[in-house]
């Protein structure tokens, strides 16, 4: 069974149709990426999954259960967490407090072990553990956003533009860690403008254009397609 199934999802911001009926699937264990230019509706898709915006129509099924329109905190409880666009860290709180908030819903004994695991993935965060998150560099903030989302122990991790505004080297590091996270069993839905990096790391990819999915295939195949190469990879 697919972990996430979106069927004919429409989202409107007032009179603007941000999503015009998109359908996609995320298989367990995979990295699925959603690429497309600015304003195509990538972030809106993640917001709808997380419950931040209400779908106008269509359905979102997570592990077979409909979650469309549920409150954001309930969706986290179901096993979906998000590192949002712009990182969304709490700059007024310390790194430690940010991570603790990621596990806000959890009361099990595994929280501490998960924090150690997250700090193992991002050693920089351990160095800055008691620092205010607002003092971190952009790359460190992105690491914190991902680590914090992992603290919810999600079965589906949503990543919104993790490379945004980062130096190429930092982006490389982040994507290496994204691969590691996936290798340890977390399914990932990745939204990216950096199609090169995204197609390289993902198993399956969808191309979004003005609220509609125009292409869908295995990531490796899409990376070879002329259209994608021309419009999104800047070659040909």
């Amino acid at each position, binding site marked *: 069974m697919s972990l996430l199934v979106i069927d004919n999802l429409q989202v409107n911001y007032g009179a603007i149709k941000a999503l015009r009926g998109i359908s996609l699937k995320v298989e367990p264990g995979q990295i699925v990426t959603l690429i497309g230019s600015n304003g195509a509706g990538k972030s809106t898709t993640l917001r709808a999954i*997380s*419950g*931040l915006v209400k779908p106008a129509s269509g359905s979102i099924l997570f592990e077979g259960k409909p979650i469309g329109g549920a*409150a*954001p*905190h309930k969706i*986290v*409880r179901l096993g979906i*967490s*998000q590192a*949002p666009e*712009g990182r*969304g*860290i*709490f*700059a*007024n*709180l310390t790194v430690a*407090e940010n991570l*603790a*908030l*990621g596990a*806000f*819903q959890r009361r099990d004994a595994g929280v501490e072990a998960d924090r150690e695991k997250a700090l193992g993935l991002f050693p920089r965060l351990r160095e800055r553990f008691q620092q205010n998150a*607002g003092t971190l560099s*952009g790359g460190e*903030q992105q690491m914190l956003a991902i680590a*914090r989302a992992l603290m*919810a122990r999600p079965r589906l991790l949503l990543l919104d533009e993790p490379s945004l*505004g980062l130096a190429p080297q930092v982006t490389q590091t982040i994507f290496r860690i994204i691969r590691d996270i996936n290798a340890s069993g977390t399914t990932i839905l990745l939204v990216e403008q950096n199609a090169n990096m995204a197609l390289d790391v993902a198993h399956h990819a969808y191309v979004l254009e003005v609220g509609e999915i125009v292409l869908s295939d295995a990531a490796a195949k899409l990376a070879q397609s002329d259209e994608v190469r021309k419009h999104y990879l800047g070659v040909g």
Partner: protein
Amino acid sequence: MSSFLQTLIDGVTVGGLYALIALGYTMVYGILKFINFAHSDIFTLGAWMTLTIAGWLGVQAGGGATGPAAWYVGVGVLVLTMVFVGVVGFVIERLAYRPLRQAPKLNVLITAIGVSLFLQNFGQLKFIFGTDPAPTPLLLPGVTLFSVGGVSIQLVDVAVIGTSLVLMLGMEVLIFRTRMGSAMRAVSFSTRNASLMGINVDKVISFTFVIGAMLAAAAGFLYTLKYPGQLKQTADGMWVMLGLKAFVAAVVGGIGNVRGAVLGGLLIGLIEYLSVAYLKSEYRDAYVFAILILVLLFRPEGILGRATVEKV
């Protein structure tokens, strides 16, 4: 010298009351980014409920024939008043503010003014508190505890300062040491991102209103101890002025900052009492608002407030 000490004590006592009320303004602002103009009426309600609940528990106005109430009755009145007013705070948020969560801030502000007018006038109904002043209950004996430098320290002052202190320390622990506190700080930074952490934002907002109302209720209770005599009716301008000064305290300390609210409260209390003692006392309100103007001119974010810059 002795009058200076006495002024300091009065200033700190009243400053503690301002601080308790300011905490409610600042917490609600921190989370919802709007000024809850009905908050001063919650304080008024606290004072009137103190009187009402003390009556239910058989404490007589001014002590009556029975004399002052036992200490545990006083504590009981405080707790019941806080609980009752806390429930009122919850209901107000639920009925008046929650439906406007997605509405422009101006709508919420106007609603707050409406709630304020409602509370002031509803309180004057004959079967509520009525339009006449009412005598405060005698919850503490008028005892002098000890004398320092020619100033006699009254039990009342110790009780008021002590209760304020305990409540403020409790707030410090709640906000910086508990799970709910970290949720409150997260929501105040960004409701959207807090909800992505799995925080039930509506619940945090309700909780904030309840806590703010309970602190204002405690301030109302302490007010009746510090200023025994006749309690003015709920729409009297004097209540609004007290609430406004507490609001000034919140702004001076740095609106949205809980430690700032405490600092601002004490500062405003002290400035008010020192200026009354050593400058023209007719201008006591003017001094407070002059401080507000100075702060807004030279440090608009308040003493402890920070102009936050977001990294992108």
